[in-house]
């Protein structure tokens, strides 16, 4: 893994080791928490998935029913009814309201539809009060059609909130998982690597110290030995000199005098 070769750029000291270790503990805890969050989200996510599939199917049903009821209305009330409807739009009486729901720290938008009484007064066919569209013929089919479509809207609004939740959760799960993975695969190994690195480095320092001590020790011993030998030699020389002094003249000097005196020294008096 790419993370293994990486480590933080730190000075390998004992203090740093403590800091990094603390960070590793933090990362592990964070990882566990995020993992839990991700699990919670996934549970929610799966529930939503199931619901979406179910709602999609019921949407097909509702849409079929509503478009068929429109056909019925058109059959009875004449084709012209749709123009009347199209022309008399003013302001929406059926609106949606959005609010948030909190799932494991992720805010999910939820829609709910409601009938706006202000909009209901205008706009011909409205949900608030049955209008007079198709009074002479097909009024019932028109209102049946309206009810069918309101039902379809109900399903669609539910589906919309599910779908939005789906997208938001998907995004949230991805982010969370990315974080989990980042912690697991990058941050934690890096911290661990740093710890091993620091530990190794500290060990090495220790070994170096030891070796140096050893070396110094050896050097010192050698020096002492050398000094000892020197001292011995000196002592021996001392001894020899002592001996010669004891004989009155040093042997060297004696020979020198003898050799020198015999060759060149002519003003010798005795």
């Amino acid at each position, binding site marked *: 893994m790419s993370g293994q070769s990486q480590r933080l750029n730190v000075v390998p000291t004992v203090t740093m080791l403590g800091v990094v270790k603390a960070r590793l503990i933090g990362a592990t805890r964070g990882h566990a928490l995020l993992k839990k969050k991700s699990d919670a989200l*996934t549970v929610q996510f*799966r529930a939503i998935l199931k619901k*979406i*599939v179910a709602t*999609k199917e019921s*949407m*097909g049903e509702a*849409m*079929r029913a*509503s*478009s068929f009821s*429109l*056909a019925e209305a058109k059959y009875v009330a004449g084709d012209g009814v*749709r123009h009347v*409807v*199209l022309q008399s*739009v*003013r*302001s*929406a009486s*059926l*609106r*949606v*309201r*959005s609010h*948030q729901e909190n799932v494991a720290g*992720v*805010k999910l*938008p939820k*829609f709910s*539809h*409601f*009938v*706006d009484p202000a909009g*209901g007064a205008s*706009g011909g*066919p*409205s949900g608030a009060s049955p209008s007079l569209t198709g009074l002479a013929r097909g009024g019932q089919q*028109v209102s049946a*059609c*309206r009810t*069918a*479509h*309101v039902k*379809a*809207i109900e399903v*669609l*609004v539910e*589906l919309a*909130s599910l*779908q*939005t939740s*789906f*997208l*938001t959760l998907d*995004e949230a*799960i991805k982010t969370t*998982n990315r974080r*989990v*993975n980042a912690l697991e695969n990058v941050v934690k190994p890096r911290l661990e690597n740093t710890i091993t690195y620091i530990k190794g480095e500290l060990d090495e320092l220790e070994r170096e110290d030891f070796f140096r001590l050893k070396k110094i020790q050896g050097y010192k011993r050698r020096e002492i030995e050398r000094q000892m030998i020197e001292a011995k030699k000196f002592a021996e020389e001392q001894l020899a000199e002592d001996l010669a002094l004891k004989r009155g003249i040093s042997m060297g000097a004696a020979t020198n005098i003898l050799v020198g005196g015999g060759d060149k020294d002519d003003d010798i008096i005795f």
Partner: protein
Amino acid sequence: MAGRANIPANSSALIAIIADEDTVTGFLMAGVGNVDLRKKTNYLLVDNKTTVKQIEDAFKEFTAREDIAIVLISQYIANMIRFLVDSYNKPIPAILEIPSKDHPYDPANDSVLSRVKYLFSADSVASDRR
């Protein structure tokens, strides 16, 4: 996170529709339609004279408007501007592909449903994947 910031706490929002005449008529009957002072409608009636450009513009306009929470779009129309629908990824307004009576609903084409299906079948693998 994309979804977090832009969920408006709006108390009332509209439902926009891009569909064929009958579907639009039906939903307008239900009281969804809205025409504001500048005569901007929250629905687009698509017939054989409507160009793809118009649909694209309407789609962009509806998805950019603040007072629209849900955009309903007939699936066969969504197929005409599939690239736009697929590239759209904001949670609000939510895009819903609805069946129209002339064109039976095809779940394979629904961008969201196909993802749902994919995740559903890959559910057991998903936990390993993550």
